[in-house]
């Protein structure tokens, strides 16, 4: 489910860890939502995104070279 403007925000930032290569674009594009672990792999916020966070979440999704990130309602 894609998040649209004006929609009740129930969206989360999620990852398919089997696709992630730890390149790290996401943590640069959305430092408020993504930190990295000791090996450079992303740790995502574990909560529903606030409306104001959707923009940077979408940036991280679009910037992932491995297409491992996505936004979805869980």
């Amino acid at each position, binding site marked *: 489910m894609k998040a649209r403007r004006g929609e009740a925000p129930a969206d989360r930032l999620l990852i398919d*860890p*089997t696709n*992630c*290569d730890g390149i790290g674009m996401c943590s640069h594009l959305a430092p408020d939502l993504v930190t990295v672990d*000791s*090996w*450079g*792999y992303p740790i995502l916020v574990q909560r529903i995104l606030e409306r104001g966070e959707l923009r940077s979440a979408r940036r991280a999704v679009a910037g992932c070279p491995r297409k491992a990130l996505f936004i979805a309602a869980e």
Partner: protein
Amino acid sequence: MNSTGYRPFELLAEPPAEVRAGLLQARPVTFGQYSPVPSTSLAGHDLPAHAACFGNRWPLDEPAAERLLHDLDRSYLTGRGGGHFPVSVKAQSALRAGPGGVLVANGSESEPASAKDHALLWLRPHLVLDGLAAMAELIEATDAVLWLHEGDPDLLDVLTRALAERRRAGLDRIVPQLALAPQHYLSGESSAIVRSLAGGPTLPAFTRVPASSSGVHGRPTLVHNVETLARIALIQRYGSAAPDSTLYTVIAEGNRQVVEADQRWTVAELIGSVTGRSAGYQAVLVGGYGGRWMRWSAVAGVGASHAAMAAHGINSGAGVLLPIRSDECGLWQASQIASYLAESSARQCGPCLFGLRAVADILDELVEGAARERDLSRLQRYRAEIAGRGACRHPDGALGMVASAMDVFADDVDEHLRLGSCRRMRSGGLPGLA
């Protein structure tokens, strides 16, 4: 009686004495020095022997299907592969998804410590295949698959013969297909099986929808452990009053023994029945390599059934029990296993691939007396970082084993930190480990 010596079904009002004694008639099956060929006084069942012992199964008509579903629910049967998910819930989910699904009997037993599925397939192949047939009919599956490890030619022979007997007798509405899994730790993980059957690699997958509603090519797919299926076959015959027991693999003294636990036994009695001693242990690894270490005092007196263990907050997992004597270094065993689990990563998810290795390295340094306090805080941090971040449960199982070892062997940890060693014995290899 037809040419195969197969008798038509006779309704058995109650389980005959042999069956009341359980799947393996409470007789131990030994895999000496971890040999793949079991030694036991129990004879394996060909089709006539199977029918003579358990009676023939009958196809499920609609009332029988409803009764089976009801009995599965009432018997509280849970998955015996280690997940302990309720069988009736999984079946309901597949029923909601509709007919045309895939049912898999998972006999690959990729938990290297376990041998109970191997023993069961070896001795009671038709009971497992009866359960597969019953479940396939119940959920109106159109494919049934028997999933086995490659590299086990003797067991493959047993099952090939059993399947041929059933084909000759025209026993199965949906003829089961054999599929062989590559020999690695995670090839029996259910999302890996689903992925492989759909033509992909045999590796765990990241999934958001359960396979029971959308699995192989979007078809509802159920993966059942073979012990679970054997119990389903008994429940079809005897309802929720079917004899219940638990198959355990006890690893001790360089042997593996599969034991069908008498429900009245305690864990100490069960282990004692194999090793000849029910004292002198400090701890037990319960469930499998990805299980939990328990203090002997916390587990010895608990009833040896999945339900009794669960009532004490113990997850019996795939039924593996690995006792550690008081003169053995438990931390060393834990570090060997941690290293093995790190090597067994499917190498797909970074936190598992790099994180488990890092955790195992710290444990290794600890047993060699090279770790400091700060390494233990590093271990804490790694554990928090890795938890819940794999596509499958492999890293979480490994972390749980490590965390419980650090807790149960806390005195050893202290001695290794301060003195470099605990001066306890380092016992020999374990199954799957060099």
